[in-house]
Structures are given as C-alpha cells and as structure tokens.
C-alpha cells in the first residue's frame, strides 16, 4: 500500500486513542444498557471494522477502520467485569475475573502463530476478513446465549446466592450525576493511578519485548519470535492464580476490597522486583525468566484490579468504575511505547527505560495501598455525593 513506518505508527495509535477515550462513555453505556446488548454491539462493530480493513486501499480508509476497531473493542472488559458482578457471589468473583482477564496474556501469546498462518495461507487482506467474520459469529452467539439479570427470573435460592454477603442490589441504571459522583471518591482515583502503572509496565513489554531481546540481548529474529511468546504464557498462570488467591483470602475472612488489593499490591511489587532483575542481570536466560515472572505478577495485578472494580462500588456502576480505571490504564499504555522509545534512543540502552517503569510500578502499588479505602462505595454514599 506504500505506507511508511510513521504511517504504521499512526495507524497503531489510532486504535489505542480511540480505545482509551471510548472507555468513559462505553462503561456508562454498559451499566445503562447491560452487557447483553452492549457487548453484542461492540463485538459486531469491531468485527465489521476488522473485515472492512481487508478491503481498504488508502491510509485514511485504514485509519477509519482502526478507529472503529478501537470504539468497538472499548466495552469488552467493562462488560466482562459487569457480567461477573451480575452472576457471581461476592466471594466467587476472583477466579472468573482471573480467567477472563487471562485472555490479555493468552491473546498476545497465540496471535503470532495463528495470524501468521492465516496470512501465509490467504494473504493479509483475507486474514482481516476472516477474523471479522469469526467475530460476527461470536457476536451472534453472545447475543443468543447470554442474558442480563434484568431479563431473567430468579428463585429465592438463586437470589440469595447472588446477593448474600454484600449490599442489596438494585438493577437501576446509572445516572450522569452518579457517574460524575464516582470521581469524588478516593477509591476511583486510586484505581486510575494504580491501573496506569500496571498497564504502563504491561505495554512496555507488549510493545518492546521483541526489540529488547534483539537490541539489548542480541538475539536473532527467529529466536526472538519464540522467546517473546514465553513470558505471556506465564501471564495466563498469574491471572488465574491471582483470582484463586483473592477468593481464598476472602473465605479466610479478608474483606472484599482487601482480598483484591493484597494480590494487586503483591503483583505490582513482584513486577517491579523482576523488572529490575531483568534490567540488571548480565545473563540472557535469567533476563527472560525475570520478564516471565514480571508478566506473571503483572497479570495477577491487572486481573485483580478488575476484580477490585467488581466489589468497590454498587452493582449499577460496576462497568463505569472498571472503564474509568481502564481509561487511566490506557493512558499509561499509550505513553509506555513512546517514552520507552525516547529513553532507548537517548541512552542507547533499555536499562533506564525498565528502571523508569519499575518506579512507576512502585508508585502505583502505593496508590493501591494508600488511596483505595477498605470499605466499598455504597449506593447511599454515591447518591449523596451526586
């Protein structure tokens, strides 16, 4: 298509910025309309945008397709956190959150072999079209198989399971005043600042791990392709393990908020420690092992931060709080590749870039520890603040 490297950079960031800024309205819409309709619409939109990208003939057409991909994907994780909130008891939400969040490690790990195979078999245009068609089928399956609680009838036993152990649920739609009132709570700001650091560190590896292995560790391109996938596989373990630990802590008597905060803080501190190890060690093997450990702890932190959003606010604004948190996260995600690139260019080494990310991670851990309060935001508080 005659695109320059700078054009490709713009196309990559077109998705990222659309995704980040669509978080705020996206989360509120999930809370108002429910994940059943919103996720089906989001999946359809991003899949159609993906399929259309297979037919583009210019930079601008591609940019528009990428923007719509970002808009469509935005409600995915706020819908997921709302689904878990709606269908799981407060003591059971850690593990399912860890399971759906593990896709953020599983996806990057399996994307290269699957997409490369499609591209080799059918060409890059049909790779986009195929992925789009698969997405439309998944959207239809979601719409047919999933139901929001407002569309279901519950027995007393079912209602007891879903509501026992926390504030009584009211399936009312969030109002603009309540959404704005979320920003008056320190818990919201703690989640925004904390998730900024988690996603910053995660995106540093997502965007720069192959470059780090080639430039800093002098690995060949084929070896990099294989080695770069290993740490993300450990992320799957970290995410699911973190969820299990959160549920275990809660059954041991730790509060809903603290049972999530503890794995998040441990996860972030682990990520910081192993990032410093990766930066300082002269051994390539130890560096890869440390990055794998860092991504495993990072997945624990990100998964349990989503789980934190599912217990830190009333059900009616769960997706909104999750989306606000994710907005803060993706500001970090958008900055990480750029800041890292500048530091590497200025110093000729990844070591200062990794140490900067470790400091950001440490600040985020402090935000979770000190800013987020132990008691969840109640509906009454939200109403008063609004």
């Amino acid at each position, binding site marked *: 298509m005659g695109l320059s*490297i700078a054009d490709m950079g713009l196309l990559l960031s077109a998705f990222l910025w659309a995704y980040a800024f669509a978080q705020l309205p996206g989360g509120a819409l999930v809370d108002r309309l429910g994940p059943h309709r919103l996720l089906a619409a989001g999946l359809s939109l991003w899949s159609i945008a993906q399929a259309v990208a297979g037919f583009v003939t210019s930079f601008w057409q591609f940019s528009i397709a990428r923007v719509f991909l970002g808009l469509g994907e935005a409600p*995915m994780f706020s819908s997921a956190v709302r689904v878990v909130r709606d269908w799981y008891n407060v003591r059971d939400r850690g593990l399912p959150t860890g399971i759906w969040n593990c896709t*953020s490690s*599983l996806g990057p790990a399996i994307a290269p072999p699957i997409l490369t195979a499609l591209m080799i078999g059918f060409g890059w245009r049909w790779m986009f079209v195929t992925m789009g068609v698969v997405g439309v089928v998944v959207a239809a399956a979601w719409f047919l198989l999933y139901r929001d609680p407002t569309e279901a009838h519950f027995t007393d036993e079912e209602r007891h399971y879903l509501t026992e152990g926390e504030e009584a649920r009211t399936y009312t739609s969030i109002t603009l005043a309540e959404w704005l009132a979320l920003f008056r709570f320190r818990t919201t700001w703690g989640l925004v600042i904390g998730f900024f650091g988690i996603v910053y560190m995660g995106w540093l590896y997502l965007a720069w791990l192959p470059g780090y292995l080639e430039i800093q560790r002098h690995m060949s391109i084929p070896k990099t392709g294989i080695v770069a996938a290993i740490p993300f596989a450990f992320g799957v373990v970290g995410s699911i393990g973190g969820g299990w630990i959160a549920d275990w802590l809660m059954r041991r008597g730790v509060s809903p908020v603290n049972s999530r905060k503890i794995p998040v803080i441990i996860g972030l501190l682990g990520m910081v420690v192993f990032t410093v190890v990766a930066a300082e060690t002269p051994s390539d093997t130890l560096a890869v092992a440390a990055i794998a450990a860092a991504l495993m702890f990072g997945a624990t932190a990100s998964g349990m931060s989503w789980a934190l959003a599912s217990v830190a606010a009333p059900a009616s604004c769960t997706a909104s709080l999750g989306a606000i948190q994710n907005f803060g996260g993706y500001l970090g995600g958008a900055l990480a590749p750029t800041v890292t690139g500048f530091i590497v260019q200025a110093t000729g080494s990844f070591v200062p870039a990794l140490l900067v990310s470790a400091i950001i991670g440490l600040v985020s851990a402090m935000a979770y520890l000190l800013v987020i309060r132990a008691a969840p935001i109640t509906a009454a508080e939200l109403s008063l603040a609004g």
Partner: protein
Amino acid sequence: MTVPGLRAAASRGASGRALSLSGLYIPTIVGQDRFGGESSLAATVRVLPLPTSCAACVMPAQAREATLAGERPMARPTAPASIRRKQRTALIMLVIAGTLNYLDRSTLSIANPLIR
C-alpha cells in the same frame, strides 16, 4: 427491656439456642447477617450489658468501619445448578470474545511488513 420484634431474630442466634438477656437488644447495621446470611446489610442484633447512657449503645466508629468492610471468615457459597450453567456459558463466551479482542488488535502489527 427489649425491642419488640427483634426477640425472635436474636433468639435464633448462631447456635439456635435462646440467648440470655443481660441487657438491651441493640439493632446495628453490619455488612452481613452473621446468624445465617439471609440478607445483606441485615439488621443484626447484639446483646450488650445494660448501659449507663445512650452513648454506650452506639457502635464504635472503628468497629463499624471494620464490619462494613466485611472483615470476617466466610464459608464458600454454593451456586445453584441453574446459576452455574449461566456462569459457565458467560465465562466461556467472555474468554472467546476476550481472546478475539486481543487477536484483532494484533493483526496490524503482525501484517505490518506485508501491508507496507
């Protein structure tokens, strides 16, 4: 001296035995019902020694904060079979959609050299 209507709830207790009445029944709002978890934010009954002033009836702020935060051991809840089916379906669909989400955002990076 008791609060009418609360005697039955108090008498039920954790062990099902009648509680001895050595003071006032004080209803307090505490996070969860520790007598069996029938409702959230349930009005739970505490038996306190007969206070000398009304100030003694008020739960200390620190204790109230701790109970609202929910710091207490809890048994694992059992989801009814119908709910478990819905959970399984929802979770499988979320994993498929989440993986697709990350595959789709990776397409441009993977196809980068060929597209240019």
